[in-house]
């Protein structure tokens, strides 16, 4: 029964994707062509990878607000290290290590020292955003590197490299969540941390791991952005936190934790990007887009919360009937 509900959730967003896609096919002139379709996929990549980290955090019924600024920080870091003549492989490893470190700090403060996750990730968010501005000196750092450009703009077998990377990351994380002990633990901690802890799941370790992974995924996203734009902007990730949160929630992963998954997040991210692409092709000025997307996201979040509540009430009713 539970499995069926879970499947229904995801397919709901998928249907939403298709409906929105069809709507824009009719409403926006140049929407329906292969090039635009690939563009939407390519634009989704960076947000999607960042959202996977957010999905993990929300699955353990917490949140990681530092996603966006880690994205900015890694884009800037890649550009600066590359300009300093550091070999690319080292640059990428250092950037990933930075992401992991931020995640580790978040994780330890939250799960070990039992600090509030909003405040902790909020403060790491502002610290990282500030440091990104500091090391970039407030401006976009442009950089040149063939391999980096290949990561961002090159193609393997006719498909953009970023799409390959994203597909790989998604596939690995879907498998990890479905098949490994870690994935099982994440879902059980999200269901109830107390119960999970009592039944022998190492809550502190797993939660810390979730934040470390979230940091690493944000770093990957930042590296891809640096490759796509051949530069690192200290404000590039500013809207990623909100967008990632929205993508995850739209994808059916609820803030209660323990429900949802990566597939939903993929659908949610696509929905956001289809919306953005369709709105701009319909000729809606970019000033309006921010407000429109905000309203759409809010409506979707309200729907999610309300339907979740209704489901809970229905569940209770069943329990009462069974007792009778």
């Amino acid at each position, binding site marked *: 029964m539970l499995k069926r509900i879970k499947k229904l959730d995801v397919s709901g967003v998928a249907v939403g994707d298709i409906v929105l896609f069809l709507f824009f096919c009719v409403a926006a002139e140049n929407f329906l062509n292969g090039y635009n379709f690939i563009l939407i996929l390519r634009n989704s990549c960076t947000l999607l990878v960042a959202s996977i980290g957010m999905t993990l955090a929300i699955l353990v019924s917490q949140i990681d607000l530092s996603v966006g600024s880690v994205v900015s920080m890694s884009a800037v870091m890649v550009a600066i290290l590359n300009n300093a003549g550091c070999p690319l492989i080292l640059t990428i490893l250092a950037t990933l290590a930075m992401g992991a470190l931020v995640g580790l700090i978040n994780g330890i403060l939250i799960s070990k020292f039992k600090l*509030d996750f909003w405040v902790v990730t909020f*403060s790491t968010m*502002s*610290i990282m*955003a500030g440091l990104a501005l500091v090391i970039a000196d407030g401006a976009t750092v442009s950089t040149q590197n063939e391999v980096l450009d290949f990561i961002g703009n090159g193609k393997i077998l006719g498909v953009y490299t970023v799409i390959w990377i994203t597909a790989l990351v998604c596939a690995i994380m879907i498998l990890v969540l479905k098949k490994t002990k870690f994935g099982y633990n994440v879902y059980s901690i999200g269901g109830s941390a107390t119960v999970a802890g009592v039944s022998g799941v190492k809550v502190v370790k797993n939660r810390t791991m979730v934040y470390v992974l979230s940091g690493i995924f944000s770093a990957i996203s930042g590296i891809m952005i640096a490759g796509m734009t051949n530069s690192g902007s200290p404000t590039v990730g500013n809207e990623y936190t*909100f967008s990632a949160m929205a993508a995850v929630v739209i994808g059916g992963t609820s803030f209660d934790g323990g429900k949802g998954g990566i597939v939903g997040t993929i659908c949610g991210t696509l929905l956001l990007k289809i919306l953005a692409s369709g709105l701009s092709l319909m000729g809606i000025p970019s000033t309006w887009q921010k407000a429109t997307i905000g309203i759409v*996201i809010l409506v979707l979040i309200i729907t999610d919360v309300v339907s979740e509540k209704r489901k809970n009430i229905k569940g209770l009713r069943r329990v009462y009937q069974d007792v009778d």
Partner: protein
Amino acid sequence: MLTKKQNLIDLLSRVAILVVVVAVLAIIKTESFWTVENIRQVVFQQAPYTILMAFGMSLAIISKGIDISMASVMVLSSYLSAKFFQQGNYILGILVAAGIGVGFGISNGLLISKIKIEPYIATFSIDFIALGLAYVVCNGKYIYGFPAGFRSLTNGSLIFGFPNIALITMAVFVLLYILTRKTTYGRGLYSIGHNKEVARLSGMKVDQILLSVYVINGVLAALTGVLYLSRLNAADPSIKGSLTMDSIAAALIGGIPFGGGKGSVLNTVVGALIIIFIRNGMNIMNISTNWQSAVVGFVILFSILYEILLKKLMIALGKKKEYM
């Protein structure tokens, strides 16, 4: 009795932080910081905006929520009312500003109390929408040049030595202090912060109180927006700046922890002064503005760690008393 003493110790320790910050600055930069002119400027001209915004943030945090949207609502209300103030149509201007504040406050309040969306997410979405609308309305045009009568709202001083804006802030402070500390409404607010369920079961109108908190925040945001208009002599969407972060940091360092139900608006004033003096000191020492976000982030992190330390200290003190 004990809690009263604890609150006093807590507040005094915050004042001590403020004194330390001011003393350090006065020693390092005696000639440019420790002058009557600079201190007056900081306390009476710069601090009121942060203090007013931090009041709203504190009310939200006391009720175990948060209000990210205040700064954007402030921007939007100042923008839409600017035209009327420019034409000297004060009543209409105030009505428009207040209407926007109340409107967004009600939507925040309903989302949080009735639909039960996490305060962070609800106000984050509203923030997105309000700022988006502000950019739509602005559309790259700035409104500037206001009548002298309107400008005297911040420039002039009714009582010698106290600029009007300081008087307004004091009036708001007294009002809010009485409201939160001396009325049943205030008691309700604090008990919601402690435990919402218990407050509901003991017959408090939890939903109404929560709704009213966010409406008050909207009004405070609108008021700050109008004052900003008068001070800057221009309507500019970039005034949002770092006010959200500053007000959260002010509330936290002032001694209003995220747990809710603790601290008073007096703490907020102390916290806001700490933040403002740190910012002023950084300006005087010619530290790049890029650093400021990171520093405020560190202040937030410091304040949560400080909170833990203080709690441990209080417990130790309490124990000693028991043994004696």
